[in-house]
């Protein structure tokens, strides 16, 4: 049987000043009709540029195919003319992207943008194009297709936008669909729905899907075959069973071992000493409105939130975007002012304290931030970033420096980092610096707001281990904000699930995972990608012999 797509010895050359000569080097890969092939890799592995190379969408002239062929149904796309590629794109091979908000033109209606696919590939009457577009929107299960045709991208939710993108990509029933991280920007429950949709559409049309992702959970859920990339090289290819079940390459093995699974860690005894009590916390945001603007929209970001934190435990606050989990964290560290309720640290209620009154308590609660690139001042040396905290609280320059060097060692960084600037470090290293800064004031409580969500999976595992070690070593109590239940399962003793500003369920991690009481918690657990595969693996591993 002839291949649908046959990539052989593909080289994608990078501009001269880049870190390596090729983004993709010597790639051999094929795609058959009616299969889903996942290309997996961490950031910088070349997986996205592979997708662009197939589409003829490389950012020329800086990046281009320098060698090899991409044969689609007997035709080498690497040699095809621009006009021929344009004909193929959208009709024979189409693509969906990671960020559906920026991937859609903000000033054109969804209808017009779908219509373009028909207009530029086939002769059809306006009426026929319209009815085809309506049918497509129904197929991707968008509510009220008539209305959606007239809608602009900003009027749809993230999941709806991605559905519209899928409708557009499948408009002419292409033979190949290339999906570049299509669910990465979506919430976990939406991600599960969109994955299901892609799989259904693929099965109904017999499409060959080239699915780019960094998430092995998604791979386990959707792939027929898997291709693993590292630094531009394909290190392993095989069926999903083979690659996930018995990976042969050490890099694949390491990656799969680093994937957190949904099996909660063994329960630890909970201390009876409560270090912090949050009681009936309230916080609302007003948007819109203004001097003459009439009524704005009011969002209840924290609605009657109450949680306790025992000494030495890690409390996870879990929820999707907009659930209010970050707001609660920011209110606790007093970056935001809650309107009502109590934040009791020992006997002191921190909530009503003014800036001056708050200052002596600041050092006891410290925060680790999400974005390792935005959380360090690009113009300040690492030494100063860490040392300025203690110095503000009266440490001498010498003491602060000694403390900083000690902390750098604790978080696993070289002492030479002291004199360097943030841009000289990788994302994972920066996150370590952020942790060192938070520890510099010897806090009792560490609030970590999505500390690993911007990191590659292998780095994620290292940072999670580091946080665990530090908590034990320094007798910290930790509040851990995350959207990822797999991560929560790894580090949290107890979990509070938030939805629309309310804490709907709190309990020990193992109990909650085994017996969730709320429907929403069950939905969240069910939506975790790859949960069946990886949980079984872990359970199998836990039963020796």
């Amino acid at each position, binding site marked *: 049987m002839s291949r649908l797509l046959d990539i052989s010895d593909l080289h994608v050359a990078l501009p001269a000043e880049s870190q390596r000569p090729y983004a993709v080097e010597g790639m051999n890969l094929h795609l058959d009709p009616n299969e889903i092939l996942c290309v997996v890799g961490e950031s910088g592995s070349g997986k996205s540029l592979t997708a662009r190379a197939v589409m003829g969408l490389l950012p020329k002239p800086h990046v281009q195919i320098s060698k090899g062929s991409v044969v689609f149904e007997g035709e080498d796309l690497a040699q095809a003319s621009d006009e021929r590629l*344009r004909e*193929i794109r959208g009709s024979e091979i189409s693509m969906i992207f990671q*960020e559906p908000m920026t991937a859609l*033109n903000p*000033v054109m209606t969804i209808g017009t943008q779908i219509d*373009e*696919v028909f207009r*530029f590939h086939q002769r059809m009457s306006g009426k026929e194009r319209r009815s085809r577009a309506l049918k497509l929107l129904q197929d991707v299960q968008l509510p009220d297709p008539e209305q959606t045709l007239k809608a*602009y991208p900003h009027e749809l939710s993230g999941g709806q936008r991605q559905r519209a993108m899928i409708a557009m990509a499948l408009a002419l029933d292409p033979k190949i669909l290339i999906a570049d991280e299509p669910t990465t920007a979506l919430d976990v429950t939406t991600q599960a729905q969109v994955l299901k949709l892609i799989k259904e559409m693929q099965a109904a049309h017999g499409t060959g899907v080239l699915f780019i992702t960094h998430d092995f959970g998604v791979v386990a859920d959707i792939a027929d075959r898997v291709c693993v990339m590292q630094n531009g090289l394909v290190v392993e290819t095989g069926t999903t069973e083979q690659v996930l079940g018995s990976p042969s390459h050490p890099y694949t093995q390491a990656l799969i071992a680093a994937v957190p699974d949904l099996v909660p860690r063994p329960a630890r005894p909970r201390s009876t000493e409560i270090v912090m009590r949050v009681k009936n916390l309230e916080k609302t945001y007003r948007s819109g409105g203004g001097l*003459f603007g009439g009524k704005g929209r009011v969002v209840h970001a924290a609605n009657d939130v109450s949680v306790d934190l025992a000494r030495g435990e890690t409390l996870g606050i879990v929820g999707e975007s907009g659930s209010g989990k970050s707001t609660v964290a920011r209110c606790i560290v007093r970056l935001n002012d809650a309107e009502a309720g109590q934040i009791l640290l020992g006997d002191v209620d921190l909530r009503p304290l003014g800036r001056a009154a708050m200052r002596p308590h600041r050092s006891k609660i410290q925060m680790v931030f999400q974005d390792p690139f935005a959380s360090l001042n690009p113009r300040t040396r690492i030494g100063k970033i860490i040392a300025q905290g203690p110095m503000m609280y009266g440490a001498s320059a010498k003491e602060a420096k000694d403390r900083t060097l000690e902390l750098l060692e604790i978080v696993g960084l070289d002492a030479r980092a002291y004199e360097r600037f943030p841009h000289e470090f990788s994302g994972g290293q920066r996150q370590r610096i952020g942790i060192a800064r938070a520890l510099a004031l010897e806090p009792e409580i560490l609030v970590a707001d999505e500390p690993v969500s911007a990191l590659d999976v292998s780095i994620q595992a290292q940072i999670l281990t580091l946080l665990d070690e530090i908590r034990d070593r320094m007798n910290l109590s930790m509040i851990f904000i995350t959207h990822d239940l797999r991560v929560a399962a790894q580090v949290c003793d107890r979990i509070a699930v938030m939805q629309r500003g309310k804490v709907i369920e709190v309990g020990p991690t193992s109990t909650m995972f085994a017996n969730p009481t709320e429907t929403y918690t069950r939905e969240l657990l069910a939506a975790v990608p790859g949960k069946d595969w990886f949980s079984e693996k872990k359970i199998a591993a836990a039963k020796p012999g």
Partner: protein
Amino acid sequence: MRYVVKRLLQAIPIVLAIIILNFLLLQLAEGDAVDVLAGEAGSATPEYMAELRAKFGLDQPLPVQLAVYLKNVVFLDLGYSFRHEMPVSELIFDRLLATVLLMVATITLAVGFGVFLGLVAAMGLNTWRDTAISIFALITYATPLFWVGLMLIVVFSLNLGWFPTSGMENFAMFYEGWDRVKDIAHHLVLPTITLALFYLALYTRLMRASMLEQAGQDYVTTARAKGVTENRIMFVHVLRNALLPVVTMAGVQVGALIGGSVIVESVFAWPGLGMLAFEALFSRDLNLLLGIFFLSALLVVAVNLVVDIVYSSLDPRIEVD
């Protein structure tokens, strides 16, 4: 419609603040209309000057004068010009048309050509067209308005004799109907080019940069992935998004444009508000000056409203309800 009303309501405090600010500033100026009148008359007794001041209400305390002025403004009574011995509103409305004509012509030329040139430059990035347009924009962006005006007069009026050197129309010919329109248009050419060149350069550069920025956006990749032609991508997808900052800038620049018209009107003896303001300033005709500031603020508000409506028709994310 509600949007228009809302925008107009929002403009009221700003216009009010401008009137009060200018009123107070002008009080700081040494000498009032009476001083000037008296100075011209040669010998005026202090009694006579006091009498004049009382007649004009200039002997009242400042807040009272301000309140009286504001009350009058609400009824569109901008006071009396003692220099021209005419109500200010009449004087201003006489000149308003000339300025509006110059402004509309300038904005049309500057935005229209700026968008066109920016588009051409961005489409042929790093070709000779791009380079030529960029150099042209760079030079016109650095040239003082009044000098451009004078040089245009030297070349096109004095040497070539194509266009008149000054004025808005040739009164001596007593043109009527179409002939008059043509005559005014003929006079309008050089002042418009003079005033437009600087802004033309600005919009050209902005449009070029905006096109380049938009061409790098994700939605352009999506359009390519759909197999849409490059022409459609440039002229439909990118162009509409790239216009947004240009339109915004055009709104921001209206005030500056009226300011620039003072110089152009002075160079070409164009009988507009700018000339009038300049004359009023030197003859200490404070009522007239205040009136001109008030009216030009209204003009800016009106043009900005039009710009906002254009903008919201281009960008669906702005809600007009």
